[in-house]
């Protein structure tokens, strides 16, 4: 990218400089005389240079469409302090203290009333099978509904916390359900996946998890 900017500035310099040189070298040429007649001042090329600069950026953007993904501002930040009570009687609560103990973990934000959560359930099961610890945060949910949901679609979770007023969800910058976070061994949020995990997202998630391990 920087190359492109330098190139377009150079181009203008070369054009202006080249013209000056031509005037010295071939004072008799007709074409040069025509150009010289215009008594060109460098400042008049400023609009052209500006436009070329913008064009350069646009060309760069066209050739690298980039990802249209919006990254959470909390990525790279430490997981805030929280304690969520257990969502089911026989499970452990989800606490900040369990994170940042040297091992990365995933946080999956879900709800039994959320339809896309059903869609991502097989993928979560697969992640759990690969040995990735996933803690669940159930948003505005009831224990009996959660139990029914897990019974029907599978239970990939270690601990399940109940976020009855969506306070943790807001604190970690999640805008909806489902979302999945990767927190590294130091308690730093490394990755945020917005929406259901599709089979095509699995490689990326596993990669990010492996990165967080380092």
């Amino acid at each position: 990218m920087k190359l492109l900017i330098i190139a377009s500035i150079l181009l203008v310099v070369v054009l202006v400089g080249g013209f000056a040189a031509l005037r010295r070298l071939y004072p008799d040429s007709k074409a040069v005389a025509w150009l010289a007649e215009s008594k060109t001042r460098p400042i008049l090329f400023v609009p052209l240079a500006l436009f070329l600069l913008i064009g350069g950026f646009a060309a760069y953007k066209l050739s690298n469409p980039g990802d249209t993904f919006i990254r959470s501002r909390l990525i790279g930040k430490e997981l805030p302090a929280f304690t969520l009570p257990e969502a089911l009687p026989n499970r452990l609560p989800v606490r900040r203290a369990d994170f940042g103990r040297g091992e990365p973990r995933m946080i999956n934000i879900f709800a039994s009333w959320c339809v896309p959560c059903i869609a991502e359930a097989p993928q979560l099961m697969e992640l759990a099978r690969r040995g990735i610890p996933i803690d669940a945060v159930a948003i505005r949910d009831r224990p009996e509904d959660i139990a029914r949901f897990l019974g029907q679609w599978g239970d990939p979770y270690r601990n399940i916390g109940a976020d009855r007023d969506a306070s943790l969800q807001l604190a970690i910058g999640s805008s909806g359900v489902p979302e999945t976070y990767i927190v590294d061994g130091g308690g730093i949020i490394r990755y945020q996946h917005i929406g259901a995990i599709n089979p095509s997202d699995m490689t990326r998630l596993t990669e990010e998890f492996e990165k967080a391990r380092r």
Partner: protein
Amino acid sequence: MIAEAGLAALWFAAALSLLQMGLGWAAVRPGNDNLLRLVRPLAVAQGLLAGISFLALIWLFLETDLSVKLVVANSHSDKPWLYKFAGAWGNHEGSMLLWVTVLAVAGGAVALLERKLRKDTLIGTLAAQATISLGFYAFLLFASNPFERSPVIPIDGQGLNPLLQDPGLAFHPPTLYFGYVGISVAFSFAVGALVTRDVGRDFAQAMRPWVLGAWIFLTLGITAGSYWAYYELGWGGWWFWDPVENASLMPWLAATALLHSVTVLATRDALRAWTVMLAVVAFSMSMIGTFLVRSGILTSVHAFAVDPQRGSFILMLLCLYIGGALALFALRVSTVREGAPFRVVSREGSLVLNNLLLTIILCLVMLGTLYPLLTEAFGTKISVGPPWFNTVSAPFALLLVIFMGMGPLLKWRKDDGNKLLKRVAVPLLLGAATALLIVIVAPDVHLLPMLGLAVAVPVALMSLMPLVGRNLRRTPLIIWGMVAAHFGIAMSLAGMASESAFSKEVLVSARPGQVSEIGPFTVRFDGAEPVAGQNWTAIAGRMTVRRGEGEEFVMLPEARMFSDPVTATSEAAIETHWDGQLYTVIGEPDGQGAWQLRLWWKPAVTLIWFGGSLVAIGGLLALLGRVMRRRSARKSVTDEAEGVPGREALA
């Protein structure tokens, strides 16, 4: 058959534009004026053919010809006819065809009507116009053919985006395009005049009506677009600083500056290089706007189907045209003689200030629009939103409006600053009083809206002052136009300031029978009822509203569900009173019998669009005045030439 005919017309138009371009550039030297006899009909024929091609597309949409890909993708046989009609330009290919058609028709109109411009410059202008057309014909024919047949004929079309199914949208894009693309004429004039070194008073006088015409359409288009967004999107806002809105605002700012500088050039023969520059910039802004929207390099709610291939095609055209024009400008403009000098305190001086401020605002809007693109190139993703745009542009806009009020009160060449201050003392005091009043009565109004009102009131008064001391019956239409447009700006500003200062908003979760208060109104929610239209079903919230002790009336905001394609939209119900609008939207049910209702009371909000329309009407008056003046001038010239006795002799 119709599709093939349309395509053929497009190919012929492209061929004619190639011929027009070649002949034009070959004949641009003085002394080859007789070739104008060839170039003129070429330009007219090209405009006609492009028009025919566009009519063919409209025909296909009205018939819902499902053998054409574009119709399948963007229409449906159940759609009301108006939206079949509007569907022709509610998509990428169709709107590009409209773009090119306007370009060609504008070129044809110049060929047909322009009599004042020097002949060689006119040839240059038509050649430049044909050069632009040719590129965009190529773009249509090779990269976005609107007439492409589809290999299989489906049972029905996929429908038009429901947000676009609105009477406003049937007319908003064509209006905007007439302005947006019509400004190409100014660009071609500038290029033609640079080539023949003909930048001067006559050139400016010839160009002025064309700039004015395009500017009227642009003003109307932006005003209508703003109102459309206001009532159709259901957010209660009227301007979102979306890249596409900015793409239409930037040419408007440049065209407004051009309109004023061309006046200086036409009356006083000053600001030559600057005027030419603005003419190039104005249309460049239109092209850049088109590019930004079509290439998808900026994300926007308005974005059409995004295709990087098309993006690179338009970028190439852009570099060729804008780069070429700017290079020509850089090489040639210094041969343009310096214009007449003038003092700082003078009509010219105020118009220079106007240009300066408009240019600053233009640069700020452009910076804000392109900034995300710049930072992303360096790896940071940000978006620039209304807070930034409002904060940085408002101070300059307010200054601009103040000087807009004062400028017309100054004499050409030089004037006395003290005299001006004496004339505007009363309005200025009135403005200060307004500010004071607001601070006392409503201390929690923010600074910018307060300043907006404090500026709008005196400027409205000042803008009427050019009429003072004139015989109103003999005042030229041009003066009336200026007064109307300036008054409209002040009015619009008053609407914007009042809307942001005094709007009230209530969000309630209401059960049937529940009563809420908003501003001077009491709103009773009576319940939700199903409604059906030709291609949608909806839930309408029935509200009985009463203002103070006045009569009750019913408002029915709807949450619509369109069938093809399946999309939900929100139809606001708006009740207009003389002093503002009550704006209601129905949202989601909570599943337990209550509905989300959103109510706004927006005092004086309608002034924004009345003001905008008044600005356009002012432009129209000025244009009429110019055309009539030109016609009578021509008549008297021919009278003299033919030796017909003048009016004095008859009387």
